[in-house]
């Protein structure tokens, strides 16, 4: 029989192993020469912060899946070829249609005969995609099948521990209730009642989307307090930088010295990095041009702003917000040699 080409979209789920196993079994029943295409689709552009680590995760998953296929075909005498690919690295994939189109393009260019889907397929962080994705495949006329798998009951897996779920609901409820009452009137009973209803709906439907990380009962409120302390400091820095830039702009000779620099920031993860990059851009004189994990490419306009950036005051402040006072005691980027002046062509 002719060779068959099977496409398996992969994401890191509880059932991904079983899906691969099923794809191998089903394909080997029909044909004795099979080409497996293991494909991971990235929802984000690789150039976003953390893009590099997301790509690495996807590549690790593909390597693992490759080993699984090899394991499963080991005791048969079929000829099997395995190809892996990460797709969607140069665009944002927003919805099921985007994913379906990416897979369709892959299927067409590689002459794919069938697609095996993981019933728990979840390429992004927020929601499962299987049903809308299947609808899009139907619309595009792509042949697919869903792998039959055993899986633990879904509610256990989605929510994690009971306390974790409660914390997320609790935090989302009070944040949205508070915001509602700020906009409304906290002394008016009608607003109190409707606010509670709205906050209830919001917290039930959106708590998992709002907090994709576990909350600490002590740590998270503490961070909020420290963030409140950070704001006046940021305002002070903004005013200082504004004055410095204004002086430079209004001087007739305009002594600017634009330089592109690279700073390796010692803050990790989405939110701290966002806070740092935003604060850097918010102070006139420094502008984040690119953020690639912890490597920030910053355009600086005047030497004073550059020195401030290399002294890392904002970085220490952000570390204080997220890691407390001991986290803020680190050498400046200049001292630990994490700064670099780069040419304009390296953007």
């Amino acid at each position: 029989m002719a060779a068959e080409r099977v496409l398996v979209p992969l994401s890191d789920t509880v059932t991904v192993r079983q899906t691969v196993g099923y794809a191998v079994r089903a394909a080997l029943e029909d044909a004795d020469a099979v080409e497996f295409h293991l494909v991971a689709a990235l929802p984000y552009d690789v150039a976003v912060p953390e893009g590099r680590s997301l790509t690495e995760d996807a590549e690790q998953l593909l390597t693992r899946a490759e080993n699984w296929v090899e394991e499963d075909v080991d005791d048969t005498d079929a000829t099997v070829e395995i190809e892996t690919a990460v797709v969607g690295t140069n665009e944002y994939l927003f919805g099921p249609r985007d994913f379906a189109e990416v897979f369709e393009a892959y299927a067409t260019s590689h002459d794919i005969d069938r697609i095996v889907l993981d019933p728990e397929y979840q390429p992004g962080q927020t929601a499962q995609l299987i049903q809308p994705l299947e609808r899009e495949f139907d619309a595009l006329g792509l042949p697919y099948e869903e792998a039959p798998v055993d899986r633990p009951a879904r509610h256990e897996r989605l929510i994690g521990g009971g306390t974790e779920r409660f914390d997320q609901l609790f935090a989302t409820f009070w944040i949205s209730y508070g915001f509602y009452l700020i906009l409304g009137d906290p002394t008016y009973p009608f607003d109190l009642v409707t606010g509670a209803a709205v906050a209830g709906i919001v917290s039930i439907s959106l708590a998992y989307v709002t907090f994709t990380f576990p909350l600490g009962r002590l740590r998270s409120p503490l961070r909020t307090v420290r963030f409140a302390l950070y704001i006046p400091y940021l305002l002070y820095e903004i005013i200082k930088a504004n004055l410095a830039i204004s002086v430079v702009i209004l001087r007739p000779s305009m002594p600017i010295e634009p330089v592109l620099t690279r700073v390796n920031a010692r803050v990790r993860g989405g939110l701290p990095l966002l806070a740092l990059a935003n604060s850097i851009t918010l102070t006139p004189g420094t502008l984040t041009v690119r953020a690639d994990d912890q490597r920030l490419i910053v355009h600086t306009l005047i030497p004073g702003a550059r020195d401030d950036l290399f002294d890392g005051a904002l970085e220490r402040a952000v570390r204080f917000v997220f890691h407390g006072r001991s986290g803020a005691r680190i050498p400046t980027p200049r001292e630990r040699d994490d700064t670099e002046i780069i040419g304009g062509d390296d953007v």
Partner: protein
Amino acid sequence: MIDQLQFWAVLLCLAFGLFFTFVSTVGVLRLPDVYSRAHTASQTDTLGAGLSLAAVALALGWESTTIYTVLLLFFVFLTNPTAAHAIARSAAESGITPLTAEDELESETPDDGASAPGDTAVNAGEEGGDHA
């Protein structure tokens, strides 16, 4: 007395807010390339809008609507760096090379060697080369 104080505080905030907006406009007109203009454009949003909103809050006094102006400022502070970063990044992605201190020297040396301060080393080197 309190009214007088409030009036002058509002006036002061508005004046400084306008001043920083003006400086920012001058900067956008004077600065050489898209990256350096993005720096000064953020001045309007931070201190320009910030002080004007502070003036609005002071003029309104202690009312529930005052909270809205504070919230407004908060959202401006979130969106301004996002927009500035988006402009800078799309400029970088469409291949616009930022003008850096060294490039500027090269373009300025032929017609006016003495204009930019702090660049004497490279200037001298280039001029020396020309004379030789």
